[in-house]
């Protein structure tokens, strides 16, 4: 990535502040989308993105370039989100409709453009998928259906991401009512 080359030049010269000034605009949207795909809530994702960049800022002088800059930043993002999920865990119950998880799902549905029962049902179906499939599905459509970007952001091989997405979409086709799929 050309931007990364510029950042890495600054890093090599020890100009960490200058490098960081380039890192934020280059990565903030993708970091946010990755965080959103994991946390499923806009505000929490933005907080996680903030926390990620604070950590990047602290750790940037120690970045040794063994991994690609993006890989490193996405790993920090995933860890930040996992810590947030771990923090929430005591209140999470998949069976409880009042759980934080269920409220997040409801909030994300409610934040859509308009009341649409079919859309709501589809989002509910997505929420029934295993977490890794949910993350992959959300990120895939947020990232304009780029398998490579999803693989880089989730830190997985391309084939694993393709498999995850295939299983997820196949499951959704099985779960969706036939008339619902045909309706569109």
């Amino acid at each position: 990535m050309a931007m990364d080359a510029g950042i890495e030049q600054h890093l090599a010269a020890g100009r960490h502040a200058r490098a960081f000034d380039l890192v934020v605009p280059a990565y903030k949207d993708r970091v946010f989308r990755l965080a959103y795909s994991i946390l499923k809530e806009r505000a929490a994702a933005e907080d996680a993105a903030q926390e990620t960049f604070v950590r990047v800022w602290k750790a940037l002088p120690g970045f040794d370039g063994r991994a690609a800059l993006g890989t490193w930043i996405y790993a920090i993002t995933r860890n930040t989100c996992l810590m947030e999920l771990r923090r929430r865990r005591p209140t999470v119950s998949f069976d409880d409709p009042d759980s934080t998880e269920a409220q997040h799902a409801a909030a994300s549905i409610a934040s859509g453009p308009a009341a649409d029962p079919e859309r709501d049902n589809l989002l509910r179906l997505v929420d029934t998928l295993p977490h890794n499939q949910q993350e992959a599905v959300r990120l895939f459509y947020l990232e304009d259906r780029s398998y490579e970007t999803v693989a880089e952001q989730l830190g997985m091989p391309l084939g694993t991401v393709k498999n995850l997405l295939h299983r997820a979409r196949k499951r959704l086709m099985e779960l969706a009512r036939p008339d619902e799929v045909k309706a569109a």
Partner: protein
Amino acid sequence: MNDPTLIGPCTDYEHDLVDLHDGTLAPDRARVVRRHLEACPRCRDWQAKFAILETRLAAALPRPGLSPTFDAKLQQRLAALVRPPVRSDLRAALEREHDSLIDSLRRGARRHAILGALGSAAVMLCALAAVRGLLAQGAGLVPSVADGPERWLMLGIVGVAMAVAALGWSAGRNGVPTLGMLR
């Protein structure tokens, strides 16, 4: 491969159908899959449903964006990370200096108060001794050292001299208790 009792696409073509939809299938393989699709209604049906699901998912999944204040908030957080240690270090140093100054002033004031009190006590004692000697002497102004009563007068004069010297020294050290009247 076209068993109508089965549901879903033909197993051999399932992944290829997705890749064909994504446009990532190699041209040679794509030709084979298209030929298969012409002959297989089950795969055609599955592929059509898959395309519909894709469209619906792309439309249904929320696409939130960062708030416009993201950069400003981040800068604030980073600034807060940098400044507090510097500010707290400076504050701690100033507090240490202030405490040290106050301690030193308190020690000095205590010493001066003690010396002043001692000087005052000496003055009072000597003055009392002198008054007693003067009263014992009666109206006599030149005492005799050898005589008993004169001895008291001599002692009184020496005491007064010592008291004046003590007061002078104490005043020189700014240690005379003034009860705040000179402030």
